[in-house]
């Protein structure tokens, strides 16, 4: 297995001496040739997970192995096999040109100048940026800078690429190019790619597998098609005119209701006729509307993340 993440736990101590449990025992693996998207609201622990995999944050428990090399026991071997583009960082020397950046970042990863230059040229050509290789990075557009940062992370031909919010704040054109390129990396070259995003469209077009992370826990994990198929056409919104009785609420809960307010809930149904079971359960509470939601990933994600309690474990979701 290319990447194995085994029970990572991270507790931060904040300045006012409180403990934030950012990641609570995350476990998953990533095969070569696969794009895995981590979806989750802000503060869910996506960046912390990525940084623990890159060895930049030290976990309180658990370990990471890249192609069998443990990050805690053989960090050098693990780091040789991964590249990362981090969020909120420049990742590049702005005063240098892309080519000079490649020479530097390649050099401190053990590449000769010649190899770093050749590889850098090739990567820039693949992005169609070969004419920018000699301008300083600060002169490039935001989108180009991000593409160059991806090239720099790939300079030593790693097997695993970590991308934290790779298309955040980029124009459509750059975002499309990056998405296209990332797919080629995985599907033509067999790289493993772990990316985080809260842009559903990105995950929907890019991912092979999807993990939803909430408050430091993976609450849903599976093939994108399975995740989508599971929800397509079967996610319903119920809006009630008043709060139902405790008994009615309990009955609805048993059928899988996820309350998004006192008088509103979402539910994922196996069969369309199950709607009537719910209606019977709610009787005699007046209903304002019942609506079937079109399930794209955004709906799945929204419906899923609004539930306060994780409804299914990763294993079930994959079935």
């Amino acid at each position, binding site marked *: 297995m290319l990447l194995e993440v085994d029970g990572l736990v991270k507790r931060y101590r904040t300045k006012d001496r409180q403990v934030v449990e950012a990641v609570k025992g995350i476990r998953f693996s990533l095969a070569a040739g696969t794009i895995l998207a981590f979806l989750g609201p802000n503060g869910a622990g996506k960046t912390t997970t990525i940084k623990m995999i890159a060895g930049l944050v030290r976990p309180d428990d658990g370990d990471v192995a890249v192609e069998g090399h443990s990050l805690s026991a053989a960090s050098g071997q693990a780091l040789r096999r991964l590249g990362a583009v*981090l969020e909120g960082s420049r990742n590049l020397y702005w005063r240098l040109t892309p080519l000079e950046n490649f020479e530097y970042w390649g050099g*401190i990863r053990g590449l000769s100048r010649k190899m770093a230059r050749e590889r850098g040229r090739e990567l820039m050509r693949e992005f169609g940026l070969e004419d920018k290789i000699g301008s300083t990075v600060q002169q490039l557009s935001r989108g180009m800078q991000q593409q160059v940062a991806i090239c720099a992370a790939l300079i030593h031909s790693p097997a695993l690429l970590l991308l934290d919010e790779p298309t955040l704040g980029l124009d459509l054109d750059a975002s499309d190019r990056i998405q296209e390129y990332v797919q080629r990396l995985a599907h033509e070259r067999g790289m493993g790619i772990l990316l985080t995003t809260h842009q559903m469209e990105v995950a929907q077009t890019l991912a092979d597998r999807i993990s939803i992370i909430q408050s430091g826990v993976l609450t849903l994990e599976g093939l994108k098609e399975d995740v989508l198929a599971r929800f397509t056409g079967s996610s319903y919104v119920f809006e009630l005119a008043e709060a139902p009785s405790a008994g009615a609420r309990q009955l609805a809960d048993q059928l899988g209701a996820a309350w998004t307010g006192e008088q509103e809930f979402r539910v994922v149904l196996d069969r369309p006729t199950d709607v009537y079971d719910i209606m019977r359960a709610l009787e005699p509470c007046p209903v304002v509307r019942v609506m079937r939601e079109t399930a794209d990933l955004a709906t799945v994600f929204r419906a899923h993340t609004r539930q306060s309690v994780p409804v299914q474990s990763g294993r079930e979701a994959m079935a």
Partner: protein
Amino acid sequence: MLHALRAEWRREWVQLRRYPTELLSELAVIVLVFYGLFLGGSYMAGGSILGGRLSDIIVGYTLWTLSMMSVGTMGWTISNEAQNGTLEQVFLSPYGATFILLLRNVAGVVIGLLFTILTLFSVMAITGHYLFVSLWDIIPGLLMIASATGLGYLVASVTILMKRSQQLLNLLQFILLFLIMLPTASLGGPWRWLAIVAPFSPVVALLRSMMTHGAALFGTGNWLLWSVVNAVLWLLIGLLVFGLAQKKARRRGNLSHY
């Protein structure tokens, strides 16, 4: 590893070339200082150059600037790269940040030394006064820079945890200057231990006896030995503390600016 050293070296060089005003202002300072020393030296000697004395001053000045550079470079690198959003990428190097910072320090010292030598030769050519600088001075010079690098790791440790180090650097310069002024060789009793353990002290005593008393490198009593011990000691302390500080920063999750 050689590729990494070359990469550091090239990066420094490219930046110097791209921003020549910074390069020129640095050069201007060295030229002015050396020119002043030469003029002052020949004036004091009544037209004839003061020979040995002047070369001692120049060696001393050069060692002091290179050492202060080694004390400050790594800390400065950390805060600068944290601000520019490149620090985490440096920490992704399989060689480890400790080693990359060391390489950067070496690259800086070598470039600084090149400048000094270049300037020295041009000033000598302009004034027509030639100095003799003993090649043996290189050994105490290296020992001094090794101690300075150990202190540099200490400054880097503070920087990586606090994200700034300017006050510490100012204080440290003051203390080091004081230690250099101290007449270490003539101290007795428990003070003698201070002269051996305090950073720079034994190597300054070594240089002093080489310069003012014209002693040969290996004829300076135990000062050479103590200088080696001192350099190794401070380098080890620096490496140890930086290793711990790095671990702590990773545990806090604030390698970059959080």
